[in-house]
């Protein structure tokens, strides 16, 4: 059952991930965004399989609820018909594909040779309470820092996307 779910979610994530970056049927950013949502959902499924329930919910909440909506809003604001008219650059496509495939192969080889395969039984349970303890004790400082980061995001986004006063 769990194995089946893993392969289902993994395949969904990878196939949708592929369709995000190189959809052969549509060059439209909206299609990419839709497939990115599916990828995110599949990843949340994998998180559940890894017993990270809290993170799975946060993943969906933040990505599907906030990040993707931002993307879609910008798509709606901009007129992006042009993308469809541009042709793929064959050279870049092939070159980039080969380069990335090589990197993937190398990394896969590295992964195969490393002693990780023998890792022990899964142990950690991602209970919300334990996460909270860690978050507000050991990682208190980065938590505050993220608050500052969000302030930066807010100030910056408001300034950048505001129309310049003539």
């Amino acid at each position, binding site marked *: 059952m769990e194995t089946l779910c893993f392969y289902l979610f993994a395949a969904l994530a990878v196939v949708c991930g592929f369709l995000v970056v190189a959809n052969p049927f549509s060059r439209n950013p909206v299609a990419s965004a839709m497939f990115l949502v599916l990828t995110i959902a599949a990843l949340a499924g994998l998180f559940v399989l890894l017993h990270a329930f809290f993170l799975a919910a946060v993943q969906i*909440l933040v990505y599907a*609820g906030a990040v993707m909506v931002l993307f879609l809003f910008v798509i709606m604001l901009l007129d992006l018909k042009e993308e469809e008219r541009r042709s793929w650059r064959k050279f870049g496509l092939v070159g980039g594909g080969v380069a990335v495939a090589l990197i993937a192969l190398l990394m896969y080889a590295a992964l195969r040779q490393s002693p990780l395969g023998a890792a022990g039984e899964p142990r950690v349970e991602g209970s919300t309470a334990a996460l909270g303890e860690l978050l507000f004790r050991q990682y208190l400082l980065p938590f505050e820092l993220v608050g500052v980061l969000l302030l930066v995001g807010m100030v910056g986004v408001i300034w950048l996307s505001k129309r310049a006063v003539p």
Partner: protein
Amino acid sequence: MMETLDQLFVLLKRWVVGEFPAAWRLWLSPLIDAGAIIGVFAGLFAVTTLLERKGLGRLQNRMGPNRVGPFGVLQPLADGLKMLTKEDIVPRAADRVVHFLAPIAMVTPILLAYAVLPFGRNLVAVDFDAGLLFFFAVGAGTELAVFMAGWSSRNKYSLLGAMRGIAQMISYEVPLVLSAVAVVLVAGSLSLPSIVDSQAGYHWGWLARWHVFTPWGLAGFILFLIAATAESNRSPFDLPEGESEIIAGHLIEYSGFKYALFFLGEYLGLFAVSALGITLFLGGWQAPVPFLAWVPSYLWFGAKLLGCIALFIWLRGTMPRLRTDQLMNFAWKFMLPLVLVNLVVAALWHGTAAWGFFGAGATRWLLGGAVLWLTYSALSHALFTAPGRGPRTYRYAD
């Protein structure tokens, strides 16, 4: 006897599942849950449409539907038949796949959200550790559905409606979640059944320990209700679908069964968020007074749900529609500060729970209430009555 009646559905399900071979049970149990939820709430949807039309009719000094069946009670059936038999029109320029998927993307996440709601004692499909978070997470899916509908129709009113809708849903999601966070803070759990449990018992034997009877809970519940109204695109926050302004917004290119699905999705969303409000603030399925505790828990829940729905219908019949700038200002400049202060008040309430001196409860109540009231009056003064903030003057319209 009453105990059995209270646990009727739980026992029933256990019996049904027990009749099947062990290998099936793993699958059967969630299927039964899902079937029951869909059945009950689709039925409630039918009843609500009728109630709403009747109620609105009375509010507007007319009869409402009264032709189909006695007193018009069969009207939902007639509406359903009409919807199903209508022609399904898809604009030629539309993105057909997305256009088709949008209603499904609307209804599915909302149905998923019902999985974590406790409808009665032990009557919850999944007791999930982070249930509240799950509820909001899947709720986020509806925004995508609104986008899909608005974008795929290739109609400018659709797109405008979708943009309005998404902006509104995102803006009001912040106070919605934050008012719920206050409850999480005090209850110390994200699991909805344990939040209900945290409201068990009675003060002095008669006043239920519901969160709504605390200063932060009362303010939080009101804020939650307002945000929930906006989340479910209901009047007075129905700008995305405003018929007179943008001819029903993202729904404009939908007809027949797909339209019915959207309609269903909106009502299911309304029920879900009402149920959440009940769970968070109104003690869930618990009885308001101890001597009525014998009434089965799901009946109490149903009664509270119907009460909430009635409230929403009343609101719809009473309030005029807002303007977009009013809508946004209200969310960001009024509700957000208030809900943040409410969070602080809830924290103080929780922190002073150990006070034991005589009159401690009253002191806490007065303190919390005073802080909230001061914030409220300061905000409303600054936003609505301060000099220069009076009635809007139209610079360009003259």
